[in-house]
Every structure is written in C-alpha cells, then in structure tokens.
C-alpha cells in the first residue's frame, strides 16, 4: 500500500520523539494500544502552569507508518493549544491531513485516544495537587 507524502514525511522525520518526566505534576501521559495489530503508542503533554497552554509534547510509537505519522502530527498540533482546545482534535482531522486510507483510520483513532488519555492523566494529577498549589500561591 502506498503511503501519502505527508505520512512518509512524518515517518522519515518524526517530530517530537522522546519522553517527558511522567512523574512531573504538569505532565500528562497517555499510553494506548490497538490489540488487532499490536501497536502501542505513548503520548505526553507538558502544560505551562501559568498560561494553561501545552508547552511541549512528545511521543513514542511502536507500530506502522500511519500510527507513527498520526502521533507525530498530533504532537505538532498539540503545542501552543490549551488543554480544552487539544480535546477538540479529532481523528478525522488527522485522517484528512495525512490522507489516510480506510484501513488505516484506526491509527488516527489511536492518536486521538492517546491525546485524550494524556489530558485525562494531566487533569487527574491537577485535581490531586490543587490544595498544594493554592498553599504556594
């Protein structure tokens, strides 16, 4: 199957590969997997405490080219967005941007789920640390 140029670009030059400190309070980690193909994707966001804007995003994906491209693109889009804006990113936008064929749509779903899981993790940490943050302020 032929990959689109954009998929190939992300696959050959993946953006933001790496990891952030998963124990940091302002880092959210999402780990998701697609059982039918055995892919696994880790996506992390770092949120600026004062502005609430995602200042950094990293990923590491073990899977096919489309899964790598979907998560690479997702990290690009995440940076500079607020958490609420980030939640609006949908898999169809990823499909359109990368021209993914129908058999690869699940890769974009994986990326969307990873974003949601990372935000969920970040928010869970935030609710836990609220009293501490107020005490400091």
């Amino acid at each position, binding site marked *: 199957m032929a990959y689109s140029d954009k998929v190939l670009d992300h696959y050959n030059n993946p953006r933001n590969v790496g990891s952030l400190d998963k124990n940091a309070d302002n880092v959210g980690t999402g*780990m*998701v*997997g*697609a*059982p*039918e193909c*055995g892919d*696994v994707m*880790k996506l992390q966001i770092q949120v600026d405490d004062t502005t609430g804007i995602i200042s950094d995003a990293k990923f*590491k994906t*073990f899977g096919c080219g489309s899964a790598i491209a979907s998560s690479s693109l997702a990290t690009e889009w995440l940076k500079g967005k607020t958490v609420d804006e980030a939640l609006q990113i949908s898999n169809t936008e990823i499909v359109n941007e990368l021209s993914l064929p129908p058999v690869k749509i*699940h890769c974009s*779903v*994986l990326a969307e*789920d990873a974003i949601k899981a990372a935000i969920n993790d970040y928010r869970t940490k935030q609710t836990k640390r609220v009293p501490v943050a107020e005490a400091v302020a």
Partner: protein
Amino acid sequence: MESNCWNCGASAPERFCADCKALQPPPADYFVFFGLPAQLSLDGKELEKQFYALSRQLHPDIFARKSQREREYSLEATAVLNDGFRVLRDPIQRAMYVLKKQGLDIGEQGTRDVPPELLEEVFDLNMALEEMKFGDEEARTQILGARERFEGMCKEIDGELKKLFAAWDAGHDAEVLTEIRGLLNRRKYITNLIKQTETA
C-alpha cells in the same frame, strides 16, 4: 437450508436435493457447512474427516459435465470448504470467527480494551528491542528473558482459553465471550512481541 431446491422446487433440500440430486448453494456458516455443532471446543479429527469427505463430494471436476449453475455452486462450495477448514481447525481463528458471528468482531473494538500493565510491558520490551539494534549486550539478555516470559504467558493464556471455550459451549454466556475476547487481545500483543524478539 430453508429454501426450496433451485432446480426442481422440492422443499428443504440438504447439500444435494433429495429428489433431483442437484447440488445446492453452499451455506455460508462454516459450522453449518461442515455439519458440526457451533462449538469453540471442536473435535479436530471429526472436522478433518468431514473435510476430506466433502472434498470428494464437492470437487469441481465431479461437476464438469453438470449444469452451469451446479458448476458455480461446486466452486463456491470448494471455497467455503477451504476457508472454513483453515479457520475452524485453528482454535484462535475459530474463536475469532465465533466472536464475529456474535457481534464481537475483534477488529472493530476500541483501543481501551487492553490492560495498562500489558501496554507498559509491551512498550518497555519494544524500547529494549530498539536499544538492541545499537548493539547493547545488556539489552540482549533482557530480551531473551522477556521472550521466555512472553512464551510462558502465551501458554498460560492458551490454558485459560481452553477452559473458557468449554464454559461458552456449556451455557453461551455472553460474559464468557467478552472474557475470551480480552484474552485474545492479550495473546495478539504477546505473539507480536515474540515475533519481534525473533527478528531483532
């Protein structure tokens, strides 16, 4: 089969019409096709016996001088025969087939049906594999150890599946089927990993 014979109109024809002996269109369901109970624990010998018996009955050569329609049905039947045999003889493929029939298609599930501990483990092993590509000897030992562990997990899963297959056959409890799907997901991840340790 519930319809009438396409050739003479006799009611309820089987594989061949009892009246005019014409070959009927093959049933799409593999269990029905092989005349076996729709069970997850299947007698492999019985399946094989049926496979050879049906191969002899349905071979396209036998229908070379028959009507166009019967020639087509024998081709269709041969396709179902081969596909069905391949799926039913393998316990994992057979289970996936039953799941699909029951509306639990393994390919159409969400990404959240995998336990997080397994994902962590899969992720770490993949990282180790990647390190190995740069010639880190320590990672190699790690991978060999992990591979043994994964093979052990796979055996454990197969044992559990066997028990669940029997449980499903006994009561057709939908929960058992969901449990089976969970185990098949897990198994898929683990067999993938074993494959990757082989190519690393």
